[in-house]
């Protein structure tokens, strides 16, 4: 006959079997006061006075923690008792399951409840609505008609306003957690120590216990009136809090790490952005320049063709005018005024010739006809071509070429125009008395440097800063186009054109070209 526990009918055979096994186990009890041992089936046990672990324990803790206040002291006592009992329950469950070879959770539960009674904690009355399962839906509702704890309180005559069967609750939850493989917690909703008729417990997963208690209270409104206070054990609450705290800390650390990373990424992106913006701005400027150059080139292409055609036609009459003036001068007339005017006519013809030359240079579009060129030969060709030009008549050309001269890939016809412009500028800077133009060719690393150094009047700071500006000229009769065109030509070769000068100390124009 099943008399240690009360369970729903369907579980009775199983619990009966457990009762047989556990009772035979307790028959093996050996008390040996001479050695101070109590043994059951080779396991040492101890007897503990129930009141000292319940009512007296609470009193002691209340005294110890009186500075923290009564409520806090009770809370501490409950936590200690619950945690100790939970640990004992867990350990006993492991031990018995192994010893008795209990396999199913219900078998384990049955052994636990019987053992509970045999060990003197309490007997158990399980309600039929209980649904013990191996998941978070686990629900067990039961009474302890003779809880050792509430009995101790009753016997002491002390009244409480809180539930006191904390060791019972802790032990049960430890045992069942181990048996069902689910974290379980027990709350005593009614307790004889505070005047209830029974000690009633609900066992459930920590996340569900509140829900189950409230459900029960809704179902039993009469009883609920008396359930003024119940506790959810601190062990799980604390563990839950610790887990939450750990989880939050990890999340915080993770988000901190991510924030740091994100910041690094943002900083890097910002840097990249700045770089991209700079590159874009540069590209935009280059594009704008290229566009302007293209528009200028297209405009000038048609203008250039016109100028080239008329140059020939205009130069012939200029030759006639200047030639006739020169022949007239040869007549050696006594009239100085006439001679002077004839000389002016000749000079003006030469000026007109210069203007045409400059316009031709400026307007000729590039055909992009690139070839490998020996730069010294290319310069010599132009020097020969200009040999008889009046502006070079008092100029000495000095050559200072490195050897061998690396080859460059250039549009030679366009580069000819650059040499002509630079030579003419150098000659004009030296004035009618002439001077020396030194042409240096030198190679350094990946570039070829072609320098035209004159002994002229040099340039002012303003001239230097505006030297490549279209239509900027310091000459009375200049067009201001020559150097800006030269700059464009050299840049189009992937090179550079630079001017260095000190006022009164001559100037140096340097063409930089990438070596092939």
């Amino acid at each position, binding site marked *: 006959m099943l008399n240690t526990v009360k369970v729903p009918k369907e579980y009775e055979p199983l619990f009966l079997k457990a009762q047989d096994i556990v009772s035979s186990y307790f028959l093996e009890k050996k008390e040996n006061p001479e050695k101070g041992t109590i043994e059951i089936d080779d396991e040492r046990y101890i007897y503990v006075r129930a009141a000292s672990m319940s009512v007296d324990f609470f009193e002691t803790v209340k005294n110890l923690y009186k500075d923290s206040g009564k409520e806090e002291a009770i809370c501490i006592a409950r936590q200690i008792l619950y945690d100790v009992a939970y640990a004992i329950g867990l350990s006993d469950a492991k031990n018995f399951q192994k010893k008795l070879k209990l396999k199913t959770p219900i078998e384990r539960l049955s052994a636990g409840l019987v053992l509970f009674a045999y060990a003197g904690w309490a007997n158990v009355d399980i309600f039929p609505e209980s649904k013990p399962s191996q998941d978070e839906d686990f629900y067990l509702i039961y009474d302890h008609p003779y809880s050792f704890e509430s009995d101790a309180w009753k016997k002491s005559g002390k009244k409480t306003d809180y539930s006191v069967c904390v060791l019972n609750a802790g032990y049960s939850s430890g045992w069942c957690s181990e048996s069902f493989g689910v974290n379980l917690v027990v709350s005593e909703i009614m307790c004889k120590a505070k005047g209830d008729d029974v000690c009633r417990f609900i066992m459930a997963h920590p996340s569900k216990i509140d829900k189950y208690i409230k459900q029960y209270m809704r179902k039993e409104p009469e009883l609920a009136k008396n359930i003024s206070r119940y506790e959810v054990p601190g062990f799980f609450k604390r563990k839950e809090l610790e887990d939450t705290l750990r989880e939050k800390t990890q999340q915080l650390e993770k988000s901190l790490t991510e924030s740091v990373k994100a910041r690094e990424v943002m900083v890097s992106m910002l840097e990249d952005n700045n770089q991209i913006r700079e590159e874009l701005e540069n590209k935009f400027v280059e594009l704008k320049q290229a566009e302007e150059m293209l528009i200028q080139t297209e405009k000038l292409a048609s203008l250039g063709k016109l100028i080239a055609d008329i*140059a020939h036609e205009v130069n012939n009459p*200029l*030759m*006639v005018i*200047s030639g006739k003036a020169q022949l007239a001068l040869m007549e050696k007339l006594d009239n100085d005024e006439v001679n002077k005017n004839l000389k002016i006519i000749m000079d003006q013809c030469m000026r007109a*010739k210069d203007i045409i030359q400059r316009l031709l240079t400026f307007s000729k579009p590039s055909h992009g006809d690139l070839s490998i060129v020996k730069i010294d030969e290319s310069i010599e060709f132009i020097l020969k071509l200009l040999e*008889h030009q009046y502006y070079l008549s008092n100029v000495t050309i000095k050559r200072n070429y490195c050897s061998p001269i690396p080859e460059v890939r250039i549009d030679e*016809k366009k580069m000819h125009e650059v040499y002509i412009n630079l030579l003419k500028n150098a000659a004009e800077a030296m004035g009618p008395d002439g001077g020396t133009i030194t042409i240096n060719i030198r190679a350094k690393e990946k570039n070829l440097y072609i320098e035209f150094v004159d002994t002229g009047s040099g340039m002012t700071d303003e001239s230097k800063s505006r030297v490549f500006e279209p239509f900027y000229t310091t000459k009375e009769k200049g067009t201001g186009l020559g150097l800006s065109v030269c700059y464009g030509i050299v840049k189009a070769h992937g090179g550079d054109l630079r001017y260095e000068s000190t006022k009164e100390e001559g100037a140096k124009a340097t063409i930089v070209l990438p070596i092939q």
Partner: protein
Amino acid sequence: MNTNEESMKKHILVVDDEKEIRDILETFLEKHGYTVTATENGAQAVDIMESTKVDCMILDMRMPETSGQSVLKKMAQKGIAVPVIILTGSQDVSGNFLEIQEMGYEDILFKPIDLNVILELIQKKIGE
């Protein structure tokens, strides 16, 4: 000037399609003691050099029918070795000057030009 002296004079051939220019050069060079033959025609210039001793030719480039460059090519074909001064109204250096230089003709003058520059160059070329 007697016939002997006349025959001692250096003979300059002026080739230009512009009459005024031919006249100026003719007048100027004759004043400096040269015998001058002037023609407006490139083909005719080649004939003259083949039939007559010419000491120096002043050659225009851009002429109708036979251009200055064609004259130079024909001279090369026929083995005519006369010193040449090119006098051109074209200033476009990207033209055919490189080719002309490669043919061995390096003296290129651009119109308008001081007549004395022409004179100096003639003297230099004919070894005076």
